[in-house]
């Protein structure tokens, strides 16, 4: 009862605060320095998402309506990579490697017999394996292997085989293994995991499959950079979250293979989006096929992710315009990070700004904090390189 009251009070405060900020943001908020504790706070909160499940997976997040949510296989797969990377940078944080290992082991336990990873959160009925979640967990196991924490190769091989074997000739997966039964360009992020695996093991069939998928993704891009088949469900407008998945997958796949058409695709979409960022007052959650805003609220995950995409694009191309956009987007996301002392949300990032926006309303998803932390680390790298 006490928890319900606390969440109710917090909801009222956060809704009021975001409402006021929403009105004032265009004139009162400027780009500038990010709190030096922002990254550590995000990582602390990610650790908390692990603690609340008893060191199984990372909780899907904290909801102001329902409290802590169950462990989420999909995002645990990539949250563990963030903890590993942060731990690597902070040499005295062996505990983070230990957490990542525990998450990786938990993922092995939830891996299905077909080698894939289930959709949804644990705790309910048994669910089918889908490609996106499988790809995200494959990333996590590859991160653990790369960090020298062995024991994941067999599970990774089964996941990679699940992905390769089910990809059609046209570069799309069968509806049975796709979220909502439709193809998605954001599976470029899955293809990136397949390429990582293929390069690690010499899996030629896996690499050919990944290339086929990425070429299909590029075929779905319009001349103005917008992507068809990027939305989660039929009839929806693609979110910045899905767009960022698509772009990051293409970009990292270019970084691995040198394939120029994938880089060009990333730049084409990014040109359109950085203009939106510059014109402001914020990147909204989605844009229609003519890049007109299709929402009032921001999807903070997408904003943080796009910041990361552009910072990586700067690292890959050396074009400071991408660095500029990346810094701006990370600013936008980081200024929405929760401060204060309430441990359930301190350091977290809401799904939407304002918090009642349609993307994960009144929730703090674990992947939002994950992508904020990733982008803050990239930001540090880029600013250090520029200063040097």
């Amino acid at each position: 009862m006490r928890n319900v009251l606390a969440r109710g009070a917090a909801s009222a405060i956060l809704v009021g605060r975001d409402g006021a900020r929403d009105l004032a943001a265009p004139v009162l908020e400027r780009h500038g320095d990010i709190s030096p504790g922002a990254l550590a706070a995000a990582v602390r909160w990610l650790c908390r998402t692990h603690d609340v499940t008893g060191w199984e997976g990372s909780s899907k997040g904290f909801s102001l309506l329902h409290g802590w949510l169950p462990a989420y296989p999909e995002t645990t797969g990539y949250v563990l990579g963030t903890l590993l990377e942060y731990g690597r940078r902070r040499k005295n944080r062996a505990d983070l490697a230990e957490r990542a290992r525990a998450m990786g082991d938990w993922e092995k336990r939830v891996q299905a017999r077909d080698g894939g990873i289930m959709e949804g959160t644990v705790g309910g009925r048994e669910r089918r394996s889908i490609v996106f979640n499988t790809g995200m967990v494959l990333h996590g196991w590859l991160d653990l292997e790369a960090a020298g924490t062995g024991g994941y190769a067999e599970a990774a091989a089964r996941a990679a085989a699940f992905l390769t074997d089910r990809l059609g000739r046209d570069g799309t997966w069968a509806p049975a293994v796709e979220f909502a039964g439709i193809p998605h360009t954001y599976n470029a992020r899955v293809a990136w995991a397949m390429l990582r695996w293929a390069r690690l093991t010499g899996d030629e069939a896996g690499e050919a499959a990944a290339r086929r998928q990425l070429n299909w993704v590029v075929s779905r891009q319009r001349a103005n950079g917008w992507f068809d088949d990027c939305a989660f469900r039929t009839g929806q407008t693609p979110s910045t979250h899905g767009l960022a998945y698509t772009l990051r997958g293409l970009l990292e796949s270019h970084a691995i293979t040198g394939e120029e058409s994938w880089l060009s695709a990333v730049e084409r979409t990014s040109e359109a989006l950085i203009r939106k960022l510059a014109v402001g007052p914020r990147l909204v959650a989605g844009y229609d096929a003519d890049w007109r805003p299709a929402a009032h609220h921001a999807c903070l995950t997408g904003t943080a992710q796009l910041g990361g995409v552009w910072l990586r694009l700067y690292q890959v191309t050396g074009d400071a315009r991408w660095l500029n956009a990346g810094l701006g987007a990370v600013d936008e996301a980081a200024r929405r990070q929760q401060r204060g002392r309430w441990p359930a949300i301190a350091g977290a990032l809401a799904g939407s700004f304002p918090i009642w926006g349609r993307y994960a309303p009144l929730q703090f998803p674990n992947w939002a904090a994950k992508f904020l932390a990733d982008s803050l680390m990239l930001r540090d790298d880029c600013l250090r390189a520029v200063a040097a």
Partner: protein
Amino acid sequence: MRAVLVSRYPRVDTIAWKRQVGGALLDAGVDVSLLYSRASLIDQAWAGLREEGWGVLRRYLALRSGGADGEAGASLAYWAEDRGLEVERVHRLGDPRPLCRLSPDVVLLVGADLVPASLLAVPRLGTINAHFALLPAYRGMNVAEWSVYNGDPVGVTIHLVDAGIDTGPILLRERIALEPGDTFESLRRRQRELAARLLVRGALELGDGLARPVPQAADEGRQYYRMHPALRRVAEARLRAQTADVDARA
């Protein structure tokens, strides 16, 4: 030749160079008039705050009190009326009729808002703008800062205005040499002086049929946006380093 200056009530920009343009045109015997946009006080405050943040208040007060450049506070509209020039005042650019009433041969943008396409068709010879960087490479905003950041020369370009942003055919282009002790403020001051001279020259050459506009290819340049404060600090450091080199060579 009949020239129309298109300007707006100054939020953050300065007035002296605009007067210099108007004065030089008058001296050259050009028939000058002014289309002046002055939105409501709330609109101006809102736009100024969005562009500059609270720093706009400091700059506005400096402008009213004569400013760092020693300018008097009166607007371009008062300056024009003092000289008996025709002035059309509008709230926003958009309706072509006020400009049509001035029947311009050439329009010069001097601190104007974005000009809608409906106005571009009005002047017989075209609309020209001064861009504070070398086109086609640097389009958009904070382009002097971006030029320095990338180690490229700073300058001014006079171009015909088309429907794109800084994409119209180039009329004149000139570099500015860095001087010891330069800051972005001092660079901008010299850019404004150069822009005033080149704008007048561009207008006169258009009127005399001597202009040779060079089209820009769409993919020749890049669009730059407002520079992030962290990169601005880097650009300032790079400017100091570049001017130190100039100093050492001198």
